[in-house]
């Protein structure tokens, strides 16, 4: 399941809803991305996430479908917020349920890496020295590339 929303989410509530009533799950992994104050000379007072309505949902659905085709997951969830957020606030949540821990870990890491390079979101930070668009990082492309077919990161099953 995927959701794009401006409202906050509660990590615990989302995990508990996803797992409720299941006894076929052995491993639950959650990843939460949060607004980080860089803590250097500049301080971030807030961050605004712009997105491409329509394409965002398609991109998140596609990456979730890819993850579920590659790893045996009982269920999964992706929530991404848009709008203006303060330091410390939640941005994104990925949850994976699987029989085995390695599949749950890998699928969650894959979804985040894929999201970073495919999902149409753009961050603008408000800092001490004014607003600025966050630049994409090459390390995100490198992280996404390690999941490409042939890189054989899939778990064969424990």
């Amino acid at each position, binding site marked *: 399941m995927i959701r794009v929303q401006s409202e906050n989410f509660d990590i615990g509530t989302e995990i508990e809803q996803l797992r409720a009533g299941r006894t076929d799950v052995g491993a639950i992994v959650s990843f939460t*991305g949060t607004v980080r104050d860089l803590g250097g000379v500049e301080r971030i007072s807030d961050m605004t*996430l*712009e*997105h*491409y309505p*329509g*394409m965002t949902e*398609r991109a998140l659905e596609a990456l979730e479908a890819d993850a579920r085709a590659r790893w045996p997951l009982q269920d999964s969830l992706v929530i*991404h917020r848009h709008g203006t957020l303060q330091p410390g606030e939640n*941005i*994104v949540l990925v949850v994976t349920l699987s029989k085995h821990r390695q599949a749950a870990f890998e699928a969650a890491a894959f979804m*985040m890496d894929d*999201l*970073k*390079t*495919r*999902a*149409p*979101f*753009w*961050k*603008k930070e408000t800092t001490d020295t004014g607003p600025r*668009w*966050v*630049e*994409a990082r090459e390390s995100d492309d490198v992280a996404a590339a390690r999941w490409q077919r042939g890189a054989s990161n899939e778990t064969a099953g424990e």
Partner: protein
Amino acid sequence: MSIKLLYFAWVREQVGVGEETVDLPDGITTVSDLMTWLKSRDEGYAAAFAKAPLIRAAVDQEHAQHDASISDAREIAFFPPVTGG
């Protein structure tokens, strides 16, 4: 050909509009052709598309290369590399 164009992040700020519908002149068949034509429209477009190699495109909400065809496209978007998550 009438087509919907969308701009996001600093591309949107420089172009000065988030969304518009335009009639394309003949001979524009790829994303790259469209970017070249847009650049000629006014200073804002010229400034935005001067950084063409930095700009990403989506054709009908799917990521597309600059040499991708835009025949039959209904919606084309231009934006910087994504920075979500």
